[in-house]
Each structure stands twice: as C-alpha cells, then as structure tokens.
C-alpha cells in the first residue's frame, strides 16, 4: 500500500470514527434531556430533529406541561446560549430585536446597538400569539434571515440560531393568531400532550423532592452546527424522494385526481417548503437514530410535526372537525404504497 493511499484510508477511518463519535454524542444528549424531562420522549425527539435540521419549532400545548423546562433543558444539554422572551400584547419589536442606545464614550454621546433577547442561540418565544403581529413579524424576520436590521444596519445572529415558540391552543382571547405565511416558517409544529399516569408519578418524584435533577451538558454549540451540516449529507433513496413528491402533490386540492377529501376540505396543500422540511427532518431523524440514510419510516415519523401546520383546511373542513393529522397520515400511506416494490 502506498503511503498516499495509506493516508487516505487513515483519513477515511478517522472521518468515520469522528462521525460515529458525533452520533454517540447525539444519543447521549437525547438521554440527558429525557432524564430531566420525563415522559416526553417523542417531543424531545421531534425537537432534536428540528434543531438538527436547523429549523425553528412551534410548540403547542396547555400551560404547565413543561414546555419551558423542556426548552431550557435542551439549551443546557446542547450547550446553547439561552434566552426567553415572554410575548405580551404590549411587547414592541425593539424589545425583542434590540435597539440603538445613546451612550457616552470619551464624554461624547454616541449610539450603540443594544442587542435584544433574540441574540441568543436558543430563544424561547413564550406564548408568541399574545404579541401583536408587528412584534411577531420582527421575530419571524430574524428566524428567516438570521439577521436583525436596526437603523439600517444588519446584525448577524449567533449560530446556531434556533427559536422555539410556544402557544396555548385554548386561551384564544386577546391573542393574535399567526398568519399562515408565518406559520409556514416554523420547521416543526410540535404538540405536547398530557403525561400519562406513570409519567406523572415520575414527574412528581423528580420535581417535588429536595433537589431538582440538573441537566448535564453533553454537546457544545459548535457540535450542533457540525451535526447540522452532517444532516444534509445523509443520503435518501430515490423511492423515498418519490414518495414525498407524490404525497405533497396529493395534498393539493387543485391537483387532478386528488383525493375527494382533499378537494372537499383542504384550502391550501403542502408547499415545496413543506416537502423540503419533510425530507430534511427524515435525514435528521435517521442520524439521531444512528443510521446513515433516510428511510420511508423516517419520513413517516416526521410527517405530522413537519406538515400539520402547513396543510390548511377550508371552512367546511374546520366546521366538520376534520383531523389534519389523520388526513396527512392517510394521504402519505396511500402514496407510500405506490412506491412499494
């Protein structure tokens, strides 16, 4: 074996070992989170998938389900700089993004940019639907562009920059529902369910004792950025891509030959951005599971959080209480069968 080839093999082996090490770290991070946040394994997985994909998540659940704890724990375990913004109706955009402040330097007054709480690596936008659309838009711009522009100057966000926004689906008085176009910018919409009896007992044990169990840091922010890049290298077989494409087309009410329910109840189908989210989430999930390729099962698992906020029902669908989740599942299984061997 020539020395050049030997070097190449050694380098490849090092790469593989580094990769395996990263995947093991990811597993440890997941375990570390679930040690603190019990009974929310699926939610934890979905949020990790979302963050590995570099997306933002909208977390929906009743108050007191541990949403804040979950986000805080994730930040601690992943070593991310954390900030929390409590959205209220009187919250102004500058309160989120930051503003120019007049300061004196060497006796002279100068304006300096005072970064807002959005300048963090993991931002918890609590009850985002309680603020005005103007403030929501300021946050959503930062989410999309990863920059904040104040007084004509663009300020780059930290990397990774992840927003986990929460909203209460029950108390709708005095809230400002996010427009569909802005909801589409959330990579995932994660629903937090009430814990089971056993989980609740575990929660009581963990949280009402003398000492709360602290979250242990497993990763650094740089590791997460590296893993985010790695996700995009995960290959996906052609039949999986075909299934995604067919499925997304099948959600369009204007599509010839689409499902009767889709034509009847759907206002807007899934956008190409939704298809991208689905594919990327499938790749991230594969990596999180310690695999190196995205499968149909990964797509299936990412289906609801990635698309449930992107399929808009019409008035009839809403009035008849049509379940978006059920419709998505049905449409996907129908298309997955068409690509079966």
């Amino acid at each position, binding site marked *: 074996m020539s020395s050049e080839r030997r070097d190449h093999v050694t380098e*490849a082996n090092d*790469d*593989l070992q580094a*990769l*395996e090490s990263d995947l093991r770290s990811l597993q440890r991070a997941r375990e570390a989170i679930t040690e603190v946040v019990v009974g929310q394994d699926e939610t934890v997985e979905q949020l990790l998938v979302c963050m590995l994909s570099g997306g933002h998540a909208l977390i929906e659940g009743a108050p007191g389900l541990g949403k804040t704890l979950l986000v805080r724990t994730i930040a601690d375990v992943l070593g991310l700089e954390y900030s929390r913004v409590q959205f209220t109706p009187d919250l102004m955009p500058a309160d989120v993004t930051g503003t120019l402040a007049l300061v004196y330097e060497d006796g002279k007054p100068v304006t300096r940019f005072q970064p807002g709480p959005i300048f963090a690596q993991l931002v918890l936008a609590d009850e985002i639907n309680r603020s005005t659309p103007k403030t929501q838009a300021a946050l959503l711009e930062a989410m999309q562009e990863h920059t904040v522009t104040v007084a004509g100057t663009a300020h780059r966000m930290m990397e990774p920059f992840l927003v986990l926004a929460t909203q209460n689906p029950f108390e709708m008085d005095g809230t400002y529902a996010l427009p569909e176009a802005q909801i589409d910018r959330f990579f995932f919409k994660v629903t937090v369910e009430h814990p089971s009896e056993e989980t609740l007992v575990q929660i009581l044990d963990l949280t009402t004792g003398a000492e709360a169990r602290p979250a242990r840091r497993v990763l650094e922010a740089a590791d997460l950025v590296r893993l985010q890049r*790695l996700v995009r*290298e*995960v*290959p*996906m*077989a*052609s*039949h*999986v891509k075909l299934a995604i494409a067919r499925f997304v087309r099948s959600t369009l009410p204007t599509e010839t030959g689409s499902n009767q329910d889709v034509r009847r109840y759907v206002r807007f189908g899934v956008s190409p951005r939704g298809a991208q989210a689905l594919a990327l989430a499938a790749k991230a999930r*594969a990596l999180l599971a310690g*695999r*190196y*390729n*995205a*499968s*149909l*099962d*990964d797509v299936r698992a990412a289906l609801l959080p990635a698309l449930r906020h992107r399929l808009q029902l019409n008035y009839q669908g809403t009035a008849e209480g049509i379940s978006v989740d059920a419709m998505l599942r049905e449409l996907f299984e129908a298309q997955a069968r068409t690509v*079966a*061997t």
Partner: protein
Amino acid sequence: MTTGHVDSLIARVRGRARTARAAAVTPWAFLGGAAAFAALRLSSVPSPTAALYGVGAALLLVAVATSVWGLFRPLTAVRVARLVDQRLGQMDRFATVVELGAAEGRVIAALRQDAAARAASISPTDAVPLRWSRPAVVGLVAALGVALAAQQLAAPPAGSTAAAAPEPITVDRVLELAEVAEAAAEKREDEHMAAVAAALAELAEEAASRNENEVTDLARLGELVSTLERLMSPLGSTATRSARADAGQSDPGALSEAMAALEQRLERIATQVFGMDTELDPETFWLEGDRIRQGEIMGDAPDLSRPAGASGSEAPAGMENAQAVASEEAPQDLSSGFIVGASSDSSVGDSSMAGQGAQDLFGDETVGASIWPFEAIGVSGEDDDEGRRVNVELAPEASETQGAEGTFALADWLPSSRPLSPAGELPFRYRSVAGGYFLPSQETANR
C-alpha cells in the same frame, strides 16, 4: 468491509427471488392446466382425444413458459435491494447503497460500511423464503383429482382399441391405395373414383418431390379417403366411419385404419370378375317375392305396393317372409351396406324422394348406367294412407355375383318413416341402383 458484500448479497437474493417467483407461479399455472383439462374432459367436446391432448400440451407449455418467465424476468439490483430492505426491516439501507453507486462522502462511506457489515450476516433464505401459495397448491391438488376422475369417467371401455402410437402414413402406402383405387375405378368405370385415385397419387408424389417419406397433409388425405369411402358406399364402413368420427379427419391412426379397409374393399372390386354388366332401366324392374324382376311394368304393372285388402303396416306383397328368407339365405355384412329408398307416391309423402319423381331422383345418368353385382341385405317398408314406401338395403360390393335378374336376399323388416339415405346424397351410380329398385306405387304407375 466493502460493497462486495452488498453486491454478493444482492446477487444471491436475486437468484433466490427468481426461484421463489417460479415456485409461486408454477402451482397456479398447473392449476389452470389441470382445471382446463378436467373441464374439457368432462364436456362433450367432439373428437375429445385430439382436442384434449392439444389443449393439454398448450397449457403445459404455458405453465412451463410462465415459470421460466418468473425465473428469468429482469430483477434490477435496486429492486432486489428494496426487497431485502422490506423483508428484513433494513430501513431502505441497501436500496440507498445500491443507488449511490460510487458516490463519495463521509456519511455515504459510513452507510456503505454499515450495509456491508449487515450484508455479511444476512442469508438469502431469510430475505426470500420459498413459500408455496397454499390456495394454489390446494387448488392444484383438487384440480388434479377432478382431472383424474374425469379421465377415468371418459376413458374408453376395457378391450377397446389400444392407444398405441399411430404409424406414419408413408408415400408408398398412399401410392398403393391410389393404384388399387385406380384399378377399381377402371373396373367400375367410375370416373369419380378415378379422379380421386389420381388425386391420391398426386398427393403422394407431392410429398415425394419434397423428399419426404411421409404424407404430412393428413387433412387432404383424409378428405380423399373420405370421398373414396363415400364412392364405395354412401354410408361407408360403420367401423371406419365411427373411428374417423372419433379421431377427426387428420388423425393418422383412424386414417390408416380407414385406408386399410378401403384398400381391402377396392382390391376385391379390382380383382372381381363380373358376371353381369347390365344396364337396368328403373322403369322395367319390379319386386316379386324376394326377387327383383325385370319387365314392362308401366301401364300394366302389378300392384306391388299393397296386397289386396292390406292395411296399416302390413307387409307388402312378397315381403311377408322377409325375416325368414334373410335368416336362411345370407349372413349380411350390414357394416358395408347402404340403404336407398323408394317412395310409394311421387306426389305425396315426407320422403326426400317423394314428390321429386323418378326422373329427379335418378337423373339422366340412369340411362345407360351400368350396374355391378349387388346384394340387397335388407328391405323395409311402410304403409300408410298415402301409399307405401319401400327401402332396400344393398351391399354393392357383395362378393357373390348375382344373376341378371338381380336376385337379392331379404333381411329384417325395419319400418322406417323415410329413406335412410336421401337420394340426393348418393353418387350417381348408386342412384342408378336405387332406380333399379324403385318401386312406384300403383297410383304412380297409373299416372
């Protein structure tokens, strides 16, 4: 660990998948064949033997072809890889590796390594277990049972003709038959038979010109043999006719049998020394007792149609002792006989001869037509209000030469509503014979 493991696994699974496909398809194909065989066997398809074996062979061919198709139908590597993924829960791992080919990347390398490690521990039998389709196997067993039962039900009775493989019909044999037929035609001065003999010779020569030792155009040969049979006897030989009816025109066995019988009969004719070469005028023959008599009957012919005072189905004059005479005088070869009919009335009646008149019945060929020795083997008659019908059964190639007066023996009295063979179907020479024994009723004679 390289992709060689994956490639090897794909190759082994591919072979296994083909075998499994063939195994899955085969019972269904044979089930179809067995079911069709049983259905055909149980149905009343004419000439069942040839049809059954033909259809059976075709279905077997289809079954084998289907299995072979299942065995060799293209199975791409991606398809096989997906099969492994699905059957063994490999999360699309192998399909992705196969599709990636030689692509590079950290994750791809890791995926390849992972897939190779897994491929080394996967057995093709786990991926594609050989399973027989239970419904197909059950159906096949049932269909085979029905087919066997049908075969038993439709089997010929014990002692019947053995199903030995028929010998091919050689050119020499056909030529031989043609020569005999030609000789017989010459003897009988039968231009039709001569034409058939020439056609037979031509058929044999055609085969010989192709350097073939066998006559392969069995359909044509069958037609010629059939024509020859018809020329020999309108009803033909009972045995050969029935055999031919069973086997079809082109069955070599039945054809060979018919040719042998024909050859024998033609040889008898060809070698016979006729003692009579008399032209019979239908208008001058009549029946007296059990004998044919010749003379002027028109105008003053005796009323033979009905004895004085007779009525109903009473036997006509001269035929009362027909049964006795038949049993005393001649054992008759019924198989080589034929039946012609004569109407009692030219204007009324349901006979195909009735209403046509003698001229129409016998045609102009009657005049001057020669007749060869014959023997009547049966006479039947029927009386009703409209007249009497007399049917005469003749054996034209009977070995005994009859006198000029045309003696013939009488057999069973078999009432018949119509002539057994319509005159229109008879060759003209037979018509002349029929004419010879046409017995006009008194009413006809008077008219």
